[in-house]
């Protein structure tokens, strides 16, 4: 098969190159991406009626063209009914002008300069967790380290109450992402969790209005856009302010936990790269970037075309869903040498692990800080480690590739 120029590649019998809603695909997405880039850079899937872009330059151009590619139908590739995302305030799913206004209300809280102030706190969280397994040889570096860090750091930052109620947050966080592999619908557990979480966030916002604090929830409840308060008198589960808080909640944990899990999983496989970090801890930020590139936790995002657009000589009509496969862009061999190899020493280059442009990840400075400090502390306090069992895939939306178990053995 050769690269088609005039027409998108169309499946005949349903033996799809790319169907992200199948277990076969999810088992090995990267080899599928490689075929897409080579054989069908502008791919059309008839069954689900979507287009997909997979080459770095195409994906990047689409991310930056926020007039042709709109977000109003959501960035999730499943949940066609937008049960979860079809509320006001869901930042990733909002187009301009509202997007920029809404994002500006929380942007300053997430700027690198604001996030840097959290460094010591993040270090403390990491140290406490390492204390718990300091004398152990066998550790699940995902479940016992990568996941608890963002749970703790992010909830504090957002302004979520502490204590036993945190267990409920953990349940909701997993709950809202609950899916059945192969299905495009939410599970009942996911629906229930979303509703409960929304109700609770609305309650917290009302609470913060009465008792303001120095946290993101307070920033949301106090925000004004062009002189008009963002939050209404009576904040309920469907309020725009609640939606914004929900979007942040959704974005803050799994992605970061997933990135750290990948980072440690890959390092476990390459002792010489671990050694390089021990020799020169200045390499740590590069290792974090490489894990973001290599696995691309948020593998794919989606847009809807506002007008016909031509990509690689192929016409995509107006009103079509287009999947932008970030995970494929980050493995594009024309951009990254030896792209399928995890290599913390590769020449640094911009990747699309956090997207780019208007909807580029709001939380990227926080995610980078957490991952960097987590690796710094591990390198400073523990020795080398190797894989001691099969890593486990976290069950989540088909947009993401996340691990939740990475058993390792320390030397």
């Amino acid at each position, binding site marked *: 098969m050769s690269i088609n120029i005039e027409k998108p590649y169309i499946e005949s019998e349903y033996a799809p190159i790319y169907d992200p809603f199948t277990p076969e695909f999810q088992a090995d997405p990267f080899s599928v991406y490689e075929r897409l880039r080579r054989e069908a850079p502008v791919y059309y899937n008839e069954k689900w009626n979507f287009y997909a872009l997979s080459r770095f330059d195409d994906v990047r151009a689409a991310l930056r063209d926020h007039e042709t590619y709109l977000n109003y139908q959501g960035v999730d590739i499943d949940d066609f009914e937008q049960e979860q995302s079809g509320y006001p305030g869901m930042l990733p799913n909002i187009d301009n002008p509202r997007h920029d206004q809404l994002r500006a209300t929380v942007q300053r809280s997430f700027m690198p300069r604001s996030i840097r102030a959290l460094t010591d706190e993040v270090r403390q969280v990491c140290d406490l967790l390492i204390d718990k397994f300091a004398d152990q040889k066998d550790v699940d570096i995902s479940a016992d380290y990568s996941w608890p860090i963002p749970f703790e750091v992010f909830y504090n930052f957002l302004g979520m109450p502490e204590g036993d109620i945190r267990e409920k947050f953990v349940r909701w966080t997993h709950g809202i992402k609950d899916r059945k592999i192969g299905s495009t619908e939410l599970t009942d557990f996911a629906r229930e969790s979303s509703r409960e979480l929304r109700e609770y966030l609305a309650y917290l916002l009302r609470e913060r209005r009465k008792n303001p604090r120095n946290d993101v929830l307070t920033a949301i409840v106090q925000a004004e856009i062009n002189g008009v308060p963002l939050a209404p008198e009576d904040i309920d589960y469907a309020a725009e302010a609640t939606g914004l808080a929900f979007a942040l909640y959704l974005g803050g944990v799994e992605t970061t936990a997933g990135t750290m899990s990948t980072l440690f999983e890959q390092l476990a496989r390459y002792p010489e790269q671990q050694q390089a970090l021990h020799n020169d801890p200045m390499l740590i930020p590069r290792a974090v970037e490489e894990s973001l590139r290599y696995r691309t936790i948020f593998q794919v995002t989606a847009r809807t075309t506002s007008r016909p657009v031509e990509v690689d000589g192929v016409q995509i009509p107006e009103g079509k869903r287009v999947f932008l496969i970030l995970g494929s862009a980050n493995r594009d061999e024309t951009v990254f040498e030896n792209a399928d190899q995890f290599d913390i020493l590769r020449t640094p*280059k*911009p990747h699309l692990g956090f997207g780019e442009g*208007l909807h580029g990840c709001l939380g990227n400075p926080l995610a980078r800080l957490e991952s960097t400090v987590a690796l710094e502390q591990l390198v400073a306090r523990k020795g080398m480690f190797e894989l001691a069992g099969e890593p486990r895939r976290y069950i989540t939306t088909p947009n993401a590739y996340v691990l939740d178990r990475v058993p390792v053995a320390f030397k």
Partner: protein
Amino acid sequence: MSALATLTHSSTVTFEEEEREIKTTVVARLDAATDVVLLTLAAADGSELPAWRPGAHIDVLLSNGITRQYSLCSDPDDRSSYTIGVLNAPASRGGSRYVHESLHVGTSLTIRGPRNHFELVDAQRYVFIAGGIGITPIAAMLREVENAGKPWMLYYGGRTVSSMALREELESLGDRVSIWPEDTAGFMDLATILGSPDEDTVVYTCGPEPLLAAIEKICDARWPEGSLHYERFAAKAIEGATDTAFEVELAKSGRRITVPADKSVLETLGENGVHILSSCGEGTCGTCETPVLEGEVDHRDSVLTKDEQSRNDCMMVCVSRSKCPLLVLDV
């Protein structure tokens, strides 16, 4: 940032009088052509707006902190509203993009002015030449000249027919209007248009720099002094001056790199193998913040406060530039 962003008036440097700010509301928004919107503004309190003559422009104070100037293109006798035309240049950041995406019917907007540096002089005959969004002041002039019963011609060039605002209204004025979409008709034939110099005719033009330069050349050589009246719009998104090249020094390596006029610091460093983390690319997210050791930054972001900007110790390299020939970055 090279494309024509908006009508900015390089001649507007002095403030002749204490101008009051007027609170207005967008009362109409019309997509007039590809990437051009016409916005009609009325005083928020419903009062009459100040009088103006064709050629005048107003300052629009955008809430993202940028002030931009736009020519009025409505009917001066109608004091209930002003209409401006705004081009959304693909490369523009901040100003016109902001207008396109954020200003809708009902949005409040503060303006200053109007001011006029492009007055219509009295003459026997008029030749108008407009390029692209430069049609806006010219359109107001045509109306006045037409009402005065003076003979005139309009030559109006644009990239494509669909990119030319007000084209249909103008075409309805008959064969004194000549439309030149580049993609089908090519560039305007200036040599012919300006082929018969005449004491009693004045030439008014507004448009992009290359067009003005070509017209100026012909008029200087062949037309009586004072016949040409023009207004330029700068090829730049922010506040008038044109971008220039400057150097950055990377303190950690001592390397010096030249940032060309049409590239950002971020892009230039990237091309030289120095990758700075970035995300939005338009000065709104703060990801690309880079410490500055020496030099004065021309801040163009919309994420730092005025205070933070004035400390001059950092810059958003995706958009900000330099006010001096050399910036030293802690990179």
